[in-house]
């Protein structure tokens, strides 16, 4: 499950996140950016590297013990 979200109005499309992504899981066009869910391992390096805090890591909600 993808835990990383990109805030549309904050991203500057600079490619810093693409450069640190070990899985080649981010596709960046001029003003469009997509995380490729099948490749993303939620390692969060992109979130930490973003100069503008445009990426958010949503911590997984732990399922109630059954």
């Amino acid at each position: 499950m993808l835990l990383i979200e990109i805030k549309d109005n904050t991203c500057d499309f600079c490619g810093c996140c693409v450069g640190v992504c070990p899985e080649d899981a981010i596709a960046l066009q001029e003003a469009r950016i997509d995380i490729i869910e099948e490749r993303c391992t939620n390692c969060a390096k992109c979130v930490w590297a973003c100069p503008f805090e445009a990426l958010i890591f949503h911590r997984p909600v732990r399922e109630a013990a059954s």
Partner: protein
Amino acid sequence: MKDRYDVLVVGAGPAGSTVARLVAREGFSVLLLEKDRDVGTPVRCGEAVSNRSLESIVDVDPRWIAATIRRFRLVAPDGSCVEPDLGGHGYVLERRLFDYDLARMAVDAGAELRTKAYVDGLLADGGEYRGVTISLNGERRTVGARIIVGADGVESRVGRWAGIDTTTPFRDMECCAQMTLADVDMEEDACEFHFGTAVAPMGYLWIFPKGHRTANIGVGVSGAAAKHKSPIRYLNEFVARRFPRAGILTTVAGGVPCAATLEDIVRGNVVLVGDAAHQVNPMSGGGITSGMHAARMAAEAIAGALRAGDLRLLAAYPKEWQRSHGAKHRTYHRMKEAVYRFPDERLNAIAAGVLALAPEQRTIWGVFRVALMKHPALVWDMAKTFGFSAFH
């Protein structure tokens, strides 16, 4: 636009446009592709270069130069300033004009150029690649090429598609936020570099004048520091303190791959140049002229390989790069790692140590000698790489 070219260059920055120009000049067909709508914007760069390095690779048009820099001011965390003599001068470029002109010169030399051309994959053909898939103004198509040049910057995806691991190690990525400010009070011939954990941990903050009371100001910090506090916060705080009344003309993000040099920059018929090949000086973060010098080496190897019909001749390019820049960049990278670990008190002590030197010894080498006093192995390393004369 044709279906097939001798050489296809992905990315019209300084390195890509230089490869395109020099290969086209030799009479080969070249297609240069830029994903953005404009060549040259947005400017994700501090725009400073040394005059000697730039003049040795291209005839400099005065229109490219926003300011000529004669003084380099290093500011320690406690505010003390050191102005080492670099033995030359610098330029702050107007990169929107510079990049635009380099691309135009490539076209004048015979290359074709397209903007809004987004390359999203390579066409595999055995161990080689026969072309790329692109989205051109939103329309999908393929273009064939004998040689594909990845000049796609910090993202460096072309290399990855060819099987080269171009991921920038997280710690080596300098994560940057920058602004162009208007109505700033500063000397128009002095570049400032600010250091310390409060302004730019594991990196630096720059203020480069661009004439007419404008300046390029930015912060670059390692990913390892950006993780705790983002570059835009450091920049906003500094600007509010130092230039509270300045107007903000641009606000831009960027990443600079300050890694030790990449060994693997040619794979089959795929060639990497510039930031995509991690050819940035890892100490300064400067990559304009090193990328262009690499582009010239790559263009010579490409023309040679095409003329002989033998891709193995591309190997001349990595060999020449390693000889001319690779070893130096590896040393710069080790120096950067050492400097990253300096606490603020150490940086203050270095400034005090340099200020205690006789004025004629206050060169950039003098700064390094004082800085690395407790690292004899690194001083030896530097001496071997840059020549012992640097230390006299």
